[in-house]
């Protein structure tokens, strides 16, 4: 083009000798980061499934604990009921012809006898 300015005299610079090596290093780092990112992202679903399994195991063990807690409560309530029965029988002792000792369980009878013995 006739109108162009002649820049042929203007000095041109060349890339520094180590520039390409720097580019390669940066590309290597970027690739490593990409691989690492991929590993992290692929590990997430694995970790999530482990967590899910652990959580379900935890839930089932909590269920077992609750079941044992209920049975303990049931035992305590049964013991309370038997002691009420014992006191009731003890209070009515001598008020009827039969002391109804045979209606008590062996354990309750033993408890009563032990108490009497301590007195």
């Amino acid at each position, binding site marked *: 083009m006739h109108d*162009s*300015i002649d*820049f042929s*005299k*203007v000095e041109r*610079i060349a*890339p520094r000798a180590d*520039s*390409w090596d720097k*580019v390669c290093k940066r590309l290597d780092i970027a690739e490593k980061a990409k691989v690492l990112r991929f590993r992290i992202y692929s590990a997430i679903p694995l970790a999530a499934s482990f967590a899910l399994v652990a959580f379900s195991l935890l839930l089932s063990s909590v269920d077992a604990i609750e079941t044992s807690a209920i049975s303990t409560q049931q035992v305590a309530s049964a013991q309370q009921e038997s002691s009420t029965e014992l006191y009731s029988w003890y209070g009515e002792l001598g008020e009827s012809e039969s002391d109804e000792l045979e209606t008590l369980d062996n354990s309750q009878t033993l408890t009563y006898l032990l108490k009497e013995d301590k007195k």
Partner: protein
Amino acid sequence: MDEKIILKSLKSGSREALALLWQEQSGHVLNLSFKMLKDRDQAEDILMDVFVQVPTAIQKFRGESALSTWLYRLTVNACLMKLRKEKRHDELEKEHLDSIVEEALGSKEAEADVDAELLTMGLNALPAETRSMLWLKDAEDLDIKDLTEIYHMPSGTIKARLSRARHFVRDFLTRKQKNA
């Protein structure tokens, strides 16, 4: 090597193809960024940034223009981003040349006997984008079509800016020679 083969290899992540591109284009990219930023270290940084982003950016390149044109576009964008980031607004003043009146413009003969340093000074007095445009057109010999792709501007706008830029540089040289 055929540009299509280089492009295909680049898309598949070939380091050898990138090295080949570096051999052919790194000098042009460096000089363009140096002309825009007027700083050797920053120009080297831009050169490395451009080539580091090539393996990723090439995936979106459809091969509608030459690889060199595409590289120049990456370079111009990277330089403009750097100038904006550093808030070098005087370098980005796009309407700066519009204030030039035709009567004050210098003649073409002014540059005939001028030294390279003065010519560089004249070029550096232009805003960065126009400076790079003039450099690519007159020093790197790109055509208007390439420039429209690089700057995303209509050819009329490119031609007008080039014309004003040339007048500005010639006027600058005339004034400097008169003062000398």
